[in-house]
């Protein structure tokens, strides 16, 4: 265990050189993943705004078949889920794994191949959907010619993470490594099986939506969630310089997630024509998710206890803590949504859309923004050039997702109440929802402004506009007090 008081300068320099060497080995491929992800985030944001405007102004961009609501919305989902979050997940996993294993990345050039394959697949997916090749299967709506690119790209990343782990010099497997190893094992299996059963050898009848929602829910639960939670478990203690509050609880949380999350997907089909036991088992699995979520929530909160003032000084911490708090909230909400009585109102309404965005954006994306703000300066050797841009990004993102969530949750809940009332006409429900749908567009514009600020910061950093890093932390407003 290293504490600040008992370290010889020589040891510090040696360790810093080792860490710098590891970052250097990852630089090219991880920055390629990171830059690609930002590109798809911007593309996905534009598609999202178009789709959102069409919901309250249906004559917007009419006459262009490529930009009809159905296609644009699917393309947006591919851009942000496959393009943005998945590419950050892969690049971030490689970087964190190398650091935690204390080993340099081997054969980095092959990861360029992986990222290129993923980019080709995403480009084909978005353009194919806009041109009318989409599959009309939620989340798996990429045209049939795309999955081979994703499977090949993913296979390389998974193999590289495993190879890095095999070469590790740090004996202990930190909880973040458990999460990453699980994600790179689970997701290739999940995706390949889902594509096989949906596209290549299609399951028929009710099995198809079962496979579909098993994949969709686990895309968040077994791919994005493990890496995002693992990232928070790495960043929060590292940034504040304090070990995680209860390591026992963190390991318990990981294994509980491994055990229960994959059951939960069927709660999306409550009320649908699936066997009752399947929906009930899924509800049980969803309620059991309280265990890992409470474990993570307590752990992150107690680790941050007496250190919340550091949110003022660290951009990475600010985003990461926002995402961690949201994880607790969105997971509790998801478990409650799996109850049949609750689903009677909330299901098939904008309430679910609000929940999905709170998970994918408020939780996962915010933690990934935190990862960028921590990781990129260590890869490029440059500090961020503008604290103003970071602040614009943070406030646009946090206010934007709050407006989005609150607006659609309220509108969606009343939408569900009215849909259950046979005396209320469908036309009046549509009319009632207009202000809430408008708030969604306002939120989307705010989020996009934040993304532009974020992309600008990133490009400025790559261009070398930031100050050269001296090796230690730098401070913005004033030097943060040491612990």
């Amino acid at each position, binding site marked *: 265990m*290293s504490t600040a008081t008992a370290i010889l300068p020589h040891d*510090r320099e040696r360790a810093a050189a080792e860490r710098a060497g590891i970052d250097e080995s990852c630089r090219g491929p991880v920055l390629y993943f990171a830059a690609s992800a930002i590109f798809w985030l911007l593309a996905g944001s534009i598609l999202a705004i178009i789709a959102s405007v069409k919901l309250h102004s249906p004559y917007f961009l009419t006459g262009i078949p490529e930009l009809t609501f159905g296609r644009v919305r699917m393309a947006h989902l591919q851009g942000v889920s496959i393009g943005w979050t998945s590419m950050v997940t892969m690049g971030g996993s490689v970087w964190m794994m190398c650091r*935690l294993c204390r080993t340099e990345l081997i054969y980095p050039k092959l990861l360029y191949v992986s990222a290129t394959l993923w980019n080709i697949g995403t480009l084909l997916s978005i353009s194919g959907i806009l041109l009318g090749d989409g599959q009309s299967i939620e989340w798996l709506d990429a045209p049939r010619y795309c999955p081979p690119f994703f499977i090949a790209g993913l296979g390389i990343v998974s193999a590289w993470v495993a190879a890095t782990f095999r070469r590790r010099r740090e004996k*202990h497997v*930190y909880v973040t490594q458990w999460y990453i190893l699980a994600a790179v094992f689970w997701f290739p299996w999940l995706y390949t099986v889902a594509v096989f059963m949906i596209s290549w050898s299609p399951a028929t009848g009710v099995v198809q939506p079962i496979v579909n929602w098993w994949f969709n829910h686990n895309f968040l639960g077994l791919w994005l969630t493990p890496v995002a939670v693992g990232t928070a478990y790495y960043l929060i203690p590292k940034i504040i*310089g304090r070990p995680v509050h209860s390591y026992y609880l963190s390991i318990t949380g990981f294994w509980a997630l491994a055990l229960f999350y994959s059951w939960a997907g069927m709660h999306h089909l409550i009320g649908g024509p699936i066997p009752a036991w399947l929906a009930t088992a899924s509800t049980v699995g969803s309620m059991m998710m309280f265990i890992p979520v409470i474990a993570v929530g307590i752990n992150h909160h107690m680790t941050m206890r007496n250190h919340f003032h550091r949110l003022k000084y660290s951009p990475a911490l600010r985003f990461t803590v926002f995402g961690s708090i949201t994880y607790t909230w969105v997971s509790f909400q998801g478990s409650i949504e799996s109850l049949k009585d609750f689903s009677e109102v909330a299901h098939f309404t904008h309430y679910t859309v609000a929940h999905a965005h709170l998970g994918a954006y408020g939780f996962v994306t915010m933690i990934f923004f935190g990862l960028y703000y921590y990781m990129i300066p260590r890869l490029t050797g440059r500090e961020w050039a503008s604290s103003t841009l970071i602040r614009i990004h943070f406030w646009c993102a946090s206010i934007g997702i709050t407006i989005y969530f609150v607006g659609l949750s309220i509108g969606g809940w009343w939408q569900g109440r009215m849909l259950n009332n046979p005396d209320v006409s469908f036309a009046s429900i549509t009319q009632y929802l207009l202000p809430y749908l408008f708030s969604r567009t306002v939120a989307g514009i705010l989020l996009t402004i934040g993304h532009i600020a974020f992309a600008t910061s990133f490009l400025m950093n790559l261009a070398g506009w930031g100050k050269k890093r001296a090796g230690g932390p730098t401070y913005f407003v004033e030097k943060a007090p040491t612990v």
Partner: protein
Amino acid sequence: MNPANIAVFAVVIGSIVLFGTATIMALGWAFRDGQFDNFEQGAASIFGPDEPIGEPTDAFPR
């Protein structure tokens, strides 16, 4: 059962066996390797002489 259904069935059962076996093996390895023996040491494993406990490692740029 037609060939397509057999293929689907094989994928589902095969996946459950593969997934379950891998999970049990990973857990067994972790216990044998002593990964769960000293939690306090495990929590401190991400720190080093260059980034020790007690030193914050990130801040806004000046």
